């Protein structure tokens, strides 16, 4: 048992998948319906392909740098000062998106499960649990992802399949009715939903079998794309695009409306709510770990336990900052463009273009 390289194929696959698919899955069909009506699934597939491309670039970067940890790659390529800045910006992105996600998560919980419990309590519970996992080493994190994958997706897919019965396939028509500008906007929004694959930077250095990595990356991206596109299609089928536009969390409403005759549980939203906790938690804890790790390297602190304790109150404060749900989504939407370009375009391309080693000739970035 080599402590250094313990992540297998399934470990890599499940880590990327559960980190990417988080709270966004529940509101995603609505955003898509608002931007491009019935073409949401087409845009999703396109976005998936783009992200696959970015993921493969990340793989190439890590490969070229001998599978070193992310911090070392960045500081080697960009030099200590610039490297640290980029890393800190990335951490801000991760923490920010995780905190916004936390707030969305809390709002949904309050809407569907617990009306009167104070949000602070819900957030605290989540943060403490996250701390518990982060304080174990990274192997525990990967193992947790492996199990969560099964728990999250097997019931969900079965439940979602049942919803196809009440829907009307023709509700997906007509297709390709929108202007290119609308498609472009939708593409950018859609790629944001794929955020989280940066976790591969963290995990790839620990992968056991280097030959199979490419195949695994492709299959995990494929799974994510199919899942998102499938959810969009099912919502459209059941609710038609006009109603999907109105719902804030169409996936949840979809599950609510499912009736599987003859089963004990009449309304599945309770089960799905419990699963929803897993969806958010996996995204949260993986990014939390990654950021704590990066901060630890950046500030030369010894232990990830310390950095995670520092980051925890930050997440708490940011999560509680927006005053109501519209502000939450507003903040999320406004910051999308900046962070997406940072994380999706800037970092991977730069690290790809500037090969590792001392400062090479300055290439013009953005």
């Amino acid at each position, binding site marked *: *048992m080599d402590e250094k390289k*313990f992540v*297998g194929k*399934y*470990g890599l696959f499940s880590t990327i998948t559960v980190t990417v698919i988080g709270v966004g899955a529940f509101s995603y069909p609505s955003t898509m319906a608002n931007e491009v009506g019935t073409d949401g699934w087409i845009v999703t597939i396109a976005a998936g392909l783009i992200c696959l491309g970015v993921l493969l670039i990340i793989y190439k970067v890590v490969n070229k740098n001998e599978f070193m940890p992310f911090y070392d790659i960045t500081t080697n390529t960009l030099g200590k000062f610039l490297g640290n800045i980029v890393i800190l910006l990335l951490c801000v992105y991760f923490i920010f998106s995780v905190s916004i996600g936390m707030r969305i998560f809390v709002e949904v*919980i309050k809407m569907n*499960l*617990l009306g009167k*419990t104070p949000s602070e*309590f*819900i957030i605290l*519970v*989540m943060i403490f*649990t996250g701390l*518990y*996992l982060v304080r*174990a080493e990274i*192997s*525990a994190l*990967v*193992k*947790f992802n*492996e*199990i*969560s994958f099964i728990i999250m997706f097997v019931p969900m897919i079965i439940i979602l399949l049942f919803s196809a019965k009440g829907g009307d396939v023709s509700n997906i028509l007509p297709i390709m009715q929108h202007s290119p500008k609308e498609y472009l906007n939708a593409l950018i929004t859609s790629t944001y939903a794929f955020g989280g694959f940066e976790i591969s930077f963290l995990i790839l250095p620990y992968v056991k079998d280097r030959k199979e990595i490419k195949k695994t990356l492709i299959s995990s991206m494929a799974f994510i794309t199919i899942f998102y596109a499938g959810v969009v299609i099912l919502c459209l089928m059941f609710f038609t695009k006009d109603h999907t536009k109105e719902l804030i969390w169409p996936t949840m409403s979809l599950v609510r409306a499912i009736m599987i005759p003859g089963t*004990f*549980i*009449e*309304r599945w*939203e*309770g*089960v799905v*709510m*419990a*699963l929803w*906790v*897993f969806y958010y*938690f996996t995204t949260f804890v993986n990014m939390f770990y990654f950021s704590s790790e990066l901060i630890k390297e950046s500030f030369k602190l010894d232990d990830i336990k310390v950095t995670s304790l520092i980051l925890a109150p930050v997440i708490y404060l940011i999560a509680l900052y927006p005053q109501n749900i519209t502000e939450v989504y507003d903040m999320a939407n406004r910051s999308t463009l900046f962070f997406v370009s940072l994380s999706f375009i800037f970092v991977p391309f730069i690290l790809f273009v500037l090969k590792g080693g001392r400062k090479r000739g300055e290439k013009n970035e953005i």
Partner: protein
Amino acid sequence: MKEIIRDLISPKVDENITYIKDLLKDTSDIVYRQFNIADWKAAIIYIDGMADKVILDNFVLESVMLKSERVENVMQIKDNLLTVSDMRQVLKLSEGLNAVLSGDTIMFIEGLSALYVIASRAWPSRGISEPSGETVIRGGRDGFTETIRFNTALVRRRIRDTRLKIEAKTVGVRSKTDVAVLYIDDIVNKEVLDKVKGRIENIKIDAVLDSGYIEEFIEDNKWSPFPQMQSTEKPDVIAAGLYEGRVAILVDNSPFCILVPATLPSLFQTPDDYYQRWINSSILRLIRFAAIVLAMLLPPLYISVTSFHTSIIPTKLAYSIAASREGVPFPAFIETIIMEISLAFLLEAVVRLPKAIGSTIGIVGGLILGQAAVSAGIVSPIMIIILSITAISSFITPNYEVSSALRLSRLFLIICSSIIGLYGLAIGAIIILIHLVKLKSVGIPYLSPLVHPHKKDMKDTFIRAPISIFRTRPEFMEPKDKIRQE
């Protein structure tokens, strides 16, 4: 703490005897027999009750005393006169005394600066019987006893391979308990073996009374309620474990042998899974798995569904539950805690009582108390049903320690779900999962093969595939010799 015994053996028998008598004064069960072998003085020392007098009388004393004309010098006694099959020469007096205290006999001969240890251990021992905690429908019914040598024999019968190694160690400063570490040399994972042996050698306590002590000393995480080693009384389980590459530890005076490393899925397997038809066993395993999940989740689900999120259950069920809970003074949470506690009381009581009364009390307690409680209006009938389903499901767990751990987890989940409903249940489940995921048993992840899965290992987890498919040993153990079947 260590006792101080001199090492030197005097060639004079009387001196030795005096020293030993002085050391072991106030012990009435030590026998000192002095006699003559031809012209030499000799003596044997043994403990009454631990040494086999038949061997001593017939094979030691008789030949030595009556046939002593065959030898001319002291050296020849052991080769030509001592008609016992198991004896050795020892040069340290302390070693000899340890042997006496273990049930062997030591013999002093005038002029010899050594002593002979004659194996004569025989004490009353429980016969081979079926272990009460691990009954099987099909399979051998022999179980370990308290004598380590019989136990190793039982294992040997199932592994007649030259590569089976039985290393002996002594643990416990005062108890000097014999401990045997068993493994198959070319299958076992060397890292695991070295770790185990190293940890055993580091035990410095004065007495080891049972394998449970050893278990606590060598486990990875003492704060976890989950057992990280498997303890069993059945030799076929040990043999199967050894064939998979595990290490077995036998402790004298304990019929419970420890198998290391242990993983949670393996703790849910029973030996007759392998001896019965594979389809039936697979279905049984799935039932077992479902029962365990049910046992853990049912009471917390009941609490969250009735107190927090009533919209989840079908309307008619909601009405039934509401109607049956009317008039009950306690909220659902307190009800559940009361029933959990009374279940725990009942289980403990039934274990302590003599067998005949035990089962009766179980029925009385369960049935009548429950019924009376409902009639008195203290608990609702739904609660009784949930309780009985939970209890029955939790008994399906083959391993007693695991079921205690599961009971604790259930309690934890109950508390979580009573504070924040389903969200609490989910978070509680996540916390338990994190704990299990972090746990390691001598370096092997506790939840293997569910984590870091190897495709081939799945054939023995949720189902039991036919034996013809078992070509390789479980991969998560990383054994040296991987091929089981051609």
